[in-house]
């Protein structure tokens, strides 16, 4: 019987005088799933990094079955049975699945016993009831499978407590279900699981207990069965938030003059992820592009703005365009805001202000020389529009919370006054408070006539805010639903099978 009772008490940590964690107690018992929730910046990441050894706390202690853990020593902490699966995976892409699982503790000394390792790896996956080819290179796997490899690696090393940092953030509906099933199976093996998530449905689906952090303090700890969404949201943001989705007025039907079609796509094809795609977005309308991860929605967005070579027709406000680069698309009034802020959106070493103006510097230059005063003016007013504090403007963008980063990127593209804004997963990794602000911003922008194409894997979000929903599967559009006709079932039916 595995015990696996991990218990932390009085953890505190400050960075440069700013406390990010103040006297937090946290524990997880074997055979239990303990969900850790809170807004970005609440201290969740710091807490689990302390548990995993990546960060050394200023005060406090952590014990595993009454053995004090060597804080700040990830290697020895792992040996003592605590494994952390980060949001960014730590796998070596060019090695195979089983090589990754046994990295650092290979079987056999001079001569690797590859078959023994493969057999053991297969056994772990069989226990989890997932099917991952153990001899495949990690780089060839889907994100969901890579995550399974991370989990398998933890399980193959006598882990007693498994910490999962937002494991579902980049998974689609069916993959999420599979992950939650795996979590349940890990728990059944007697391990303690710490589960971080922004999605309440998941928390309620798997968690036995819930801890809410806010501003580095524990504000709530209770059995999941005793909690409901409003209570949790209130604990997270410290105030009442009606619900995450602000009401969206249904678009006036054709009773008044029908609005102009701003973006029209026909026969758009780019590789196998985007085949013969057709749809349109009107001025003032939010069209949701739904589907599972890998259905090709991002490819459609990239193809429209010329980031990938594509064939087919794209019309902006009636005239046919062919963008060969995102620069041309921006000049033509179409902006694409990436789903992958860190890799494809943000300049972490530049200030928030410079991040916002990078696409529009020409507007602040005279004879090629930038007017910093004019830039500051534009940035200040844009910051007000999207809801970023002025103080954050001179901060490095890499130090902002996910929500503020997303708002800064929105401001970058709004400064160019586009006709069409393509938002790819606009609320991924964004906390509840910022999320409702982003929805409110979308409502305001469409009221001013902007056309928004919103790519989203978050079903409640799509159903709540889109006026029309286009559903994709395997690179093709499989159907289009009016807001009134759309339910989770109708969308998922189109997204999942023929």
């Amino acid at each position, binding site marked *: 019987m595995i015990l696996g009772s991990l218990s932390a008490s009085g953890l505190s940590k400050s960075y440069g005088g700013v406390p990010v964690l103040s006297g937090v107690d946290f524990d997880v018992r074997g055979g239990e799933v303990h969900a850790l929730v809170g807004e970005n910046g609440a201290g969740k990441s710091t807490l689990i990094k302390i548990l995993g050894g990546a960060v050394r706390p200023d005060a406090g202690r952590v014990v595993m079955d009454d053995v004090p853990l060597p804080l700040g020593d990830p290697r020895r902490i792992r040996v003592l049975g605590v494994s952390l699966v980060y949001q960014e995976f730590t796998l070596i892409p060019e090695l195979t699945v089983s090589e990754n699982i046994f990295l650092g503790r290979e079987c056999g000394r001079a001569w690797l016993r590859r078959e023994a390792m493969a057999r053991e790896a297969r056994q772990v996956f069989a226990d989890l009831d997932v099917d991952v080819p153990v001899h495949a290179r990690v780089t060839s796997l889907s994100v969901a499978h890579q995550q399974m490899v991370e989990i398998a690696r933890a399980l193959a090393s006598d882990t007693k407590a498994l910490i999962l940092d937002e494991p579902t953030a980049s998974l689609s509906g069916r993959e999420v279900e599979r992950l939650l099933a795996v979590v349940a199976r890990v728990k059944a093996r007697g391990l303690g699981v710490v589960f971080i998530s922004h999605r309440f449905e998941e928390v309620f689906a798997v968690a036995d207990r819930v801890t809410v952090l806010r501003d580095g303090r524990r504000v709530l700890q209770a059995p999941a069965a005793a909690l409901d969404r409003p209570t949790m949201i209130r604990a997270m943001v410290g105030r009442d938030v009606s619900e995450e989705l602000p009401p969206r007025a249904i678009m006036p039907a054709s009773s008044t003059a029908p609005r102009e079609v701003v973006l029209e796509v026909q026969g758009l094809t780019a590789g196998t992820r985007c085949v013969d795609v057709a749809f349109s977005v009107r001025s003032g309308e939010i069209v949701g592009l739904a589907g599972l991860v890998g259905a090709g929605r991002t490819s459609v967005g990239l193809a429209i703005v010329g980031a990938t070579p594509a064939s087919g027709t794209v019309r902006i406000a009636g005239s046919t365009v062919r963008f060969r680069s995102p620069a041309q698309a921006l000049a033509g009034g179409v902006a694409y805001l990436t789903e992958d802020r860190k890799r494809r959106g943000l300049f972490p070493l530049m200030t928030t202000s410079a991040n916002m103006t990078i696409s529009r510097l020409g507007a602040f230059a005279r004879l090629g020389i*930038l007017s910093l005063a004019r830039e500051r003016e534009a940035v200040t007013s844009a910051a007000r529009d999207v809801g970023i504090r002025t103080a954050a403007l001179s901060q490095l963008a890499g130090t902002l919370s996910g929500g503020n980063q997303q708002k800064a990127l929105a401001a970058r593209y709004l400064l160019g006054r586009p006709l069409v804004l393509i938002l790819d997963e606009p609320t991924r990794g964004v906390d509840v408070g910022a999320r409702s602000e982003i929805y409110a911003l979308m409502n305001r922008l469409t009221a001013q006539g902007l056309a928004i194409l919103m790519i989203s894997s978050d079903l409640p979000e799509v159903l709540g805010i889109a006026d029309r929903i286009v559903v994709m599967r395997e690179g093709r559009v499989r159907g289009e639903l009016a807001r009134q006709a759309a339910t989770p079932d109708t969308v998922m039916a189109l997204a999942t099978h023929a």
Partner: protein
Amino acid sequence: MTVRRFLSRYAIYVALVVECAVLALATDAFFTVGNLENVLRQNAFPAIIAAGMTFTILTAGIDLSVGSVVGLAGVVCADAIAHGWGLAPAIGAGIAVGVVVGVANGLVVTRVRIPPFIVTLAMMLVVRGVALKYTNARTISDLPPLLSPLSRGLPMATAMVIVFALAWVALERTAFGRHVYAIGGNADAAWLSGVRVNRVLMAVYVGCGACAGLAGVLVASRLNAGYPRAGELYELDAVAAVVVGGTSLFGGRGSIWGTLAGAFFIGILNNGLNLYNVSPYDQMIAKGVVLLAATSLDRWRTE
């Protein structure tokens, strides 16, 4: 402001001031007009090369061909004068050599998408080979004294000040400069944000080549000759100056003033060791140690 925060911003300037203070106190020879002019003359052209190098490194690239460009630009400039060209056209010819090499570097980097390290390493060999072939490995000497006025302190310093002023304006006060930082910080994001990445990179390599070409002319003026092996290992001195000046080899972080301070920190180190009659071999060791120390400090302050 914490010590670490202060150091992270001003480390190289503090080091430069301390270095000068130590030398001024320890030797009588350092703080004399003659020696300071000497320092300026010896370090103006390495600083100019490093200014161009700063741009390539800020984009997370590098230009290893600058030393060879110094050699070829010098012989072309000297040959032009030997053939009776005037001063301005000869200087122009030297700079043009750098521009041409920069265009070649930029084209291969942006079109063929080979890492700049490899492209410019190859170009380093090609350009040096051309310089040697062009002169049959002989020095072009016995020139009319057209170039030698350039080798004095004032013209050297003027050229350097102009280059650094232009570099500062380009980096801090133009869209181009922002784009340079953006590409070094996150090239993919820059492209999706509408930055014309290839154009910017072309300009960066052309600018770097032009700086090296100008430096080649200045070197020729000091020698009053075109020496095809001039500038060997200058690429490494330039990289060292940029890195000691606090610019990250991974791109996206650094400043042009840091490079100027870095170039002079290394130059004055050489000067000081010379004043103490330290052997050239020991000087190399000292430079290596300083480079390691500076980069270790960089690790410590960014952690």
